[in-house]
């Protein structure tokens, strides 16, 4: 097989079946025209050396083949911003869950006998699962977007009218993402201080007061299990308090304050997870309902079950809200780095 045949075949190998033969034929014809022209110019017969020179001039087979192909994307520029946003959100959620898992493993898991066992568990179970989860999630996201790219080619992601008829007046205001809303943080400080005082110094007063069968009663809402978490609650509230004071002083969100916010929110989610997995934090047991509030056995059982479900879902919502807050803080951090400060 001569050099031209090999050259044309190498290009054709990279072309779609539908157009291959036609393009191969045209390239062969063009190369032969070039050779004929070169032969006339140089005044000598076509030989291998001349053929090599002409083929090199025509171009690398890969480059020539690529010039006939449309630009190909696994994920194209139109889809890429959405892909990237989804990837960042999923990674943030996975990271939050891993931090929660780490917190639970460190403070609420099964006791380990040796340090080696602890580190082995940390690296193989938590970090291993985290990285394999990240890889699997990334692979799945890429797969989904690649499928959309492949099978939804030609889809318009914006309506034609929307492309032309947009109005600059409809654009959202430029938000100063770093501005601190002082009022919110003052209110938060007040509630934290009240909470710290009541939960640390007057826990015995947290409950339901009332009259049943002409007798005054008191039923504690929270169990002893809840109060075993007080060091963690104090730590998280303390950190939130410090963050609020810092923000009121600084008047602007900064990288460090956002990191602290993410840590506090992740901690809140971790604590809610620990409460969810640990003994019930609810003090209103069937016994308490019957003895203090004079419920019937069936009524007490039903109400206790209902309250347990309410607490369970409240904790789940707290975990999700914590994760969402971490993501929001992360997004704000990214936006802050991108958005120039405006007066």
């Amino acid at each position, binding site marked *: 097989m001569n050099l031209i045949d090999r050259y044309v075949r190498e290009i054709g190998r990279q072309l779609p079946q539908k157009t291959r033969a036609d*393009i191969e*034929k*045209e*390239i062969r*014809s*063009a190369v*032969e*025209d*070039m050779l004929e*022209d070169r032969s006339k110019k140089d005044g000598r017969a076509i030989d291998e050396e001349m053929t090599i020179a002409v083929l090199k001039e*025509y*171009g690398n087979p890969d*480059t*020539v083949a690529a*010039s*006939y192909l449309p630009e190909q994307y696994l994920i194209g520029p139109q889809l890429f911003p959405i892909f990237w946003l989804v990837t960042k959100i999923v990674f943030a959620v996975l990271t939050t869950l891993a931090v929660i898992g780490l917190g639970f493993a460190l403070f609420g898991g099964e006791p380990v006998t040796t340090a080696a066992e602890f580190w082995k568990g940390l690296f193989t179970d938590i970090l291993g699962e985290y990285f394999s989860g990240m890889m699997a999630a990334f692979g799945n996201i890429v797969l989904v977007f690649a499928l959309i790219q492949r099978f939804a080619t030609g889809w318009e992601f914006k309506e034609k009218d929307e492309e032309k008829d947009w109005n600059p007046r409809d654009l959202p205001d430029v938000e100063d993402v770093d501005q601190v809303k002082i009022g919110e943080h003052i209110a938060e400080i007040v509630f934290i201080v009240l909470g710290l005082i009541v939960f640390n110094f007057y826990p015995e007063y947290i409950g339901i007061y009332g009259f049943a069968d002409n007798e005054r009663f008191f039923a504690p809402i929270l169990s002893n299990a809840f109060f075993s978490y007080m060091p963690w609650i104090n730590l998280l509230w303390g950190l939130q308090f410090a963050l609020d004071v810092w923000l009121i002083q600084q008047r602007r969100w900064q990288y460090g304050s956002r990191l602290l916010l993410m840590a506090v929110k992740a901690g809140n989610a971790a604590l809610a997870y620990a409460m969810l997995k640990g003994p019930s934090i609810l003090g209103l047991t069937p016994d308490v309902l019957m003895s203090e509030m004079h419920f019937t056995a069936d009524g007490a059982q039903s109400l206790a079950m209902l309250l347990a479900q309410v607490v369970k879902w409240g904790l789940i919502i707290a975990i999700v809200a914590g994760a969402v807050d971490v993501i929001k803080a992360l997004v704000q951090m990214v936006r802050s780095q991108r958005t120039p400060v405006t007066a």
Partner: protein
Amino acid sequence: MANPPVENVTLDLRRGVIVLATLSQLSQEQYGYSLLKNLSDLGLDVDQGTLYPLLRRLEAQGLLESVWKIEEARPRRYYVISAAGRKLLPKLKEEWNSIVAVMKKMLA
């Protein structure tokens, strides 16, 4: 960010011109290599890797027509401007003249 090499900037400048140049030279049918030589003789050097795929794209857009002919014992594909291409050409020329006038003012 590093400055793009001079060749890349020049290539970008020429890229937009090649379509107009190609359409303007195909009122009479020509095969690819003869068009390449013709453009080169007129002072516009275009490489094969740019011209041949462009001819196919213009044909796919309906601006050119092509036909294979056997000449000197080998096939050659001849291209000629289509009716749609002929309709478009004056508009492109007008646009080009306007660009040249504007650029002359800017670069004076």
